[in-house]
């Protein structure tokens, strides 16, 4: 089996964006990309698929409220960007995405023609 999704297509030029943690699972029918986008509401997520490049952007909800003084900080206040190049054709029409508890799941069904076929031995 070859990995369907490779490293980002090109080095990211945008300095102020964070590459989210992500994981890919899949079988011959579909791939599932799970991207951690903590602090990003559903309305802040955008997904694009163009020229076999899947681009996921996550915009965090408004930062620290006015009047709050930060005493300790580990959570970066950066928005997220992830680009993945797909090396298997996927069925764009039936692409599905769900955001739940700060995790985006993108379901990418592999195009029928690209699925492996079992050949019956006569």
């Amino acid at each position, binding site marked *: 089996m070859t990995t369907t999704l490779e490293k980002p297509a090109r080095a990211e030029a945008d300095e102020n964006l964070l590459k989210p943690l992500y994981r890919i699972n899949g079988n011959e029918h579909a791939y599932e990309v799970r991207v951690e986008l903590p602090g990003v509401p559903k309305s802040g997520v955008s997904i694009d698929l163009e020229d076999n490049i899947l681009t996921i952007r996550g915009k965090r909800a408004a930062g620290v409220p006015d009047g709050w003084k930060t005493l300790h900080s580990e*959570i*970066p206040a950066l928005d997220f960007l992830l680009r993945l190049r797909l090396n298997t054709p996927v069925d764009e029409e039936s692409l599905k995405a769900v955001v739940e508890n700060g995790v985006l799941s993108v379901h990418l069904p592999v195009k029928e023609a690209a699925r492996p076929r079992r050949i019956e031995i006569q």
Partner: protein
Amino acid sequence: MKITRFNPSLNLGRVADFDQWLRNPFAAFPLMGQLLGDFAPAFTSGRPATDVHEDKDNYYACFELPGVKKEDLKVEIHDRLLNVSAERKEKNGEQESSLTLCRSISVPEGVNAEGISARLEDGILVVTLPKQEHRKPKLIEIA
């Protein structure tokens, strides 16, 4: 499995990525990350990133807990130690995996333990710790 060449200059050049490296040292090695992923959910560390803020009425402790459901989360206060523990369950086809996340932070003196509240939204837990009356800044009237 296809082997791609590892190019560190692409991955370790930026501060943001370095920060990410601290959180997930295998992120720069996609292949290894994926191999490990077969055995353990390696894509988030067990120690969630935490911010602490204050305003005049409260302290606020924020924890990054993506993928954690409210029912799998426990927040406790014990002897000025705020403990957050969570279990993240994940389904990959028939396989199920889980990851335990926990973090303890010490709470400043003068917190009203009875009034502590917590809210989980978009993978971020915010614990609000109200300051006791005598810890709040007082405005002194000028006569």
